[in-house]
């Protein structure tokens, strides 16, 4: 039994513990109550905050929705498959469907665009995209819209769909279509105008060519003073008409944007020298010096448009020459800047002519305007030259500058930035007086292809005068036939001819005749650069614009018949340093065989003289065939060794067939071999003397 005292104490402790617990719990309950109160206040504050935030959000959403509605933007929200989830009123109006009808429709059924699948693919990428396409309205009509798409992500940043913003662009599309149609119409009209100009050009040029050509022929007949004066006036009038015509054609081309820059690599120094030559000829009658200075830094060929550049320089030079009675016209090309493959060249045309006043300077670049009204009366011209030059230079990325003092002269200049090629310039060809070269046309054969009888008479009379031997074809087919039978040194080819045109004939000659390497020059009445380019593409090397004066024709003859020979000689001389073989000999072979070892050459020539005459003396028509065969067998290689290639060929070909041909043929051929041999052996003898002197 437990002591009552102990029980009493237990009871006492438990009562006290209970009271203690109760008071702790009371305290806790109070704390809890207060915490609860606080929590409630927090909650209320939070609710107020949430409320105001949602109101702000709602207002902002409403604001943007209103903006969207006012901007008339159609909105459509789609899932990843393109099914419509939500649309706005504008979109509903655009399609003509109600919101309910649109719900769960696939947007693909609402567009008239097969490429939309790929557009939808594009929408899948993160980037925003926009495309133009046609919506199909409920009533079947179409509506052009611009759609801008944006991806929609859910809370876990996963792509769940897209929103498409539609903007009605049907008005713009209508406008666009009208613009395109208008543009096409304008282009057609322009093309018709171009065609008309091209045709007119040909039609006017052909009779003009006859007038100019016949006038020049008439000039060389016996005329009295009065007749000469009249003739002069005819020529001047015709020349003016000619330059007016080509200027007008150039202007129309430039206005139509048909003049395009065709880059080519060419030798600028050659172009400049040719220009100088042209004006030297013109300036003969005046007390006028034509000067040319070329910067020695221009060592290599440049990449620019040689035709356009030439036209500008010719224009400027022609003006300078026209307005300068005495003194000089100076053409110069100076390098302002040279860096790696780029070079800036300044071109200057400076004259000591009549010059211009400040007021005149302001007018000269305008079309049909000259410095003053008197100029066209006194000097002729259309007033288009400078305008054309300025326009061409703009195409080349340059601009023309002018400085002038009335009574003292003018200076026109422009700068051109070009690329420099790695081709060195050609060495300048020796300057020639064309008059002195008449004799060198001898032995050259030229083919003229021209259908116009006036032009035929004009050219053929000039050629007769200059002692050029020629054949005349009246169309491309005839020219081709000639070319398949005879070989020519130069061919002139009209472009527009019946039966077969010049370009077709050129292409055929280049592939189907024995004149594949003969230079072909275009005779063209067209001033269109594109025509000229086509001619060059078909295989022609140069062109003469009709109408032309005798000087033009002569220049071409000089360039292709005379200078070629001179150039060859220069080349040979360069190779041989200071020795040149007789031109009758096969110089190429001799150079290749002996190079600069002229002692060996001499030795071989001497051996030839010691042995071959003895052998050749035994070659006789009275011999047995086998004897002649053996002689030919021995000598034909020896001929070759001293540069008698033709003789060697003759001997060898007879040697090859001697057993099979009738004796009468053998006789004839031996005769001609001996004839040639006796001439050639003299050359060899003189060559030995020359070589001995040289080697010593």
């Amino acid at each position, binding site marked *: 039994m*437990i*002591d009552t005292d*102990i*029980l009493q*104490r*237990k009871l006492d*402790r438990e009562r*006290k*513990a*209970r009271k*203690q*617990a109760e008071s*702790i*719990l009371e305290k*806790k309950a109070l704390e809890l109550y207060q915490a609860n109160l606080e929590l409630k206040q927090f909650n209320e504050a939070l609710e107020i905050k949430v409320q105001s935030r949602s109101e702000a959000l709602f207002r902002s959403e409403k604001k943007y929705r209103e903006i969207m509605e006012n901007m008339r933007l159609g909105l459509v929200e789609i899932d990843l498959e393109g099914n419509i989830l939500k649309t706005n009123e504008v979109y509903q109006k655009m399609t003509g469907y109600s919101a309910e009808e649109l719900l769960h429709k696939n947007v693909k059924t609402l567009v008239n665009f097969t490429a939309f699948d790929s557009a939808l693919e594009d929408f899948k990428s993160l980037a925003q995209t926009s495309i133009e396409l046609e919506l199909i309205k409920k009533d079947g009509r179409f509506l052009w819209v611009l759609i801008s798409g944006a991806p929609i992500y859910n809370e876990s940043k996963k792509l769940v769909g897209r929103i498409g913003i539609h903007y009605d662009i049907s008005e713009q599309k209508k406008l666009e279509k009208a613009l395109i149609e208008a543009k096409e119409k304008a282009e057609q009209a322009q093309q018709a105008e171009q065609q008309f100009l091209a045709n007119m050009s040909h039609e006017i040029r052909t009779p003009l060519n006859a007038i100019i050509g016949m006038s020049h022929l008439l000039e060389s007949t016996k005329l009295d003073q009065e007749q000469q004066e009249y003739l002069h006036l005819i020529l001047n009038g015709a020349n003016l008409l000619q330059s007016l015509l080509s200027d007008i054609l150039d202007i129309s081309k430039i206005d139509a944007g048909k003049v395009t820059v065709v880059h080519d690599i060419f030798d600028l120094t050659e172009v400049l020298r040719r220009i100088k030559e042209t004006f030297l000829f013109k300036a003969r009658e005046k007390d006028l010096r034509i000067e040319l200075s070329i910067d020695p830094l221009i060592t290599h060929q440049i990449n620019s448009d040689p035709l356009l550049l030439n036209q500008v320089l010719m224009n400027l030079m022609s003006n300078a020459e026209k307005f300068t009675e005495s003194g000089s016209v100076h053409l110069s090309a100076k390098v302002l800047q040279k860096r790696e493959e780029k070079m800036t060249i300044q071109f200057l045309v400076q004259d000591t002519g009549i010059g211009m006043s400040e007021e005149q300077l302001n007018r000269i670049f305008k079309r049909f305007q000259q410095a003053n009204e008197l100029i066209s009366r006194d000097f002729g011209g259309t007033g288009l030259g400078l305008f054309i030059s300025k326009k061409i230079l703009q195409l080349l990325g340059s601009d023309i500058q002018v400085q002038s003092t009335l009574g003292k002269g003018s200076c026109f200049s422009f700068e051109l930035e070009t690329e420099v090629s790695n081709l060195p310039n050609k060495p300048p060809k020796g300057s020639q007086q064309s008059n002195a070269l008449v004799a060198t046309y001898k032995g050259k054969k030229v083919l003229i292809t021209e259908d116009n009888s006036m032009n035929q008479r004009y050219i053929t009379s000039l050629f007769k005068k200059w002692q050029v031997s020629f054949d005349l074809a009246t169309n491309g087919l005839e020219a081709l036939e000639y070319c398949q039978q005879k070989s020519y040194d130069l061919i002139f080819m009209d472009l527009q001819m019946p039966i077969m045109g010049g370009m077709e004939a050129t292409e055929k000659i280049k592939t189907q005749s024995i004149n594949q390497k003969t230079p072909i020059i275009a005779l063209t009445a067209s001033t269109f650069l594109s025509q000229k380019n086509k001619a060059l593409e078909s295989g022609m090397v140069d062109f003469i614009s009709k109408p032309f004066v005798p000087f033009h024709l002569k220049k071409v003859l000089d360039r292709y018949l005379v200078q070629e020979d001179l150039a060859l000689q220069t080349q040979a001389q360069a190779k041989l340093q200071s020795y040149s073989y007789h031109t009758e000999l096969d110089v190429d072979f001799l150079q290749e065989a002996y190079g600069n070892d002229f002692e060996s050459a001499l030795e071989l020539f001497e051996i030839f003289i010691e042995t071959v005459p003895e052998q050749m003396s035994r070659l006789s028509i009275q011999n047995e065939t086998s004897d002649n065969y053996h002689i030919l067998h021995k000598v034909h290689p020896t001929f070759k060794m001293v540069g008698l290639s033709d003789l060697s060929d003759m001997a060898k070909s007879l040697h090859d067939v001697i057993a099979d041909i009738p004796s009468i043929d053998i006789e004839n051929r031996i005769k001609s071999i001996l004839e040639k041999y006796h001439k050639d052996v003299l050359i060899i003898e003189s060559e030995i003397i020359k070589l001995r002197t040289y080697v010593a």
Partner: protein
Amino acid sequence: MKGIVFTEFLDMVEQEFGYETVDHIIEASKLESGGVYTSVGTYPFSEMLQLVSNLSEKIEVEIPSLLYAFGKYLFNTFLSSYPAFFNRCEDGFSFLDSIDSYIHIEVKKLYHDAELPAFQSTRLSESQMELIYRSSRKMSDFAEGLIDKSMSYYKHDYTLSKELLNPDGSEVKFLITLK
């Protein structure tokens, strides 16, 4: 020290040795609280020391054994009062892991003033755990009773070794190895 430790301790003494012993150890101690304890109250730790030491003297059992037995006893109280702590763990190691990382955090939320020992657990391998006990109260024997009961509760076959990291018993390393 939380009142529940006192009330449970005195319950255990009464259950084992009768209320006379309870009354004896209270009367033999000089207690500020007068031996009146409620589980929701908080009392000086020194009172517990006096009660344990008086019990040891009375029943002639060493203090460590007493504390160990008390640990085992208290486990049952914890189990019935806070089953959620046990249900959320699948085995003994994860339960021991959760003392520091979860249970004591929750206890602190309920009783700001609770002063709790630290149990730093490290899994040495699949079958071995190191548990370092740290407390200024130096009641590692009490902890050992709780650990043993916990491991048995999750039905593990295991061995338990104990090593003093600090001679005063404020830092003790337990090594539990599953068989």
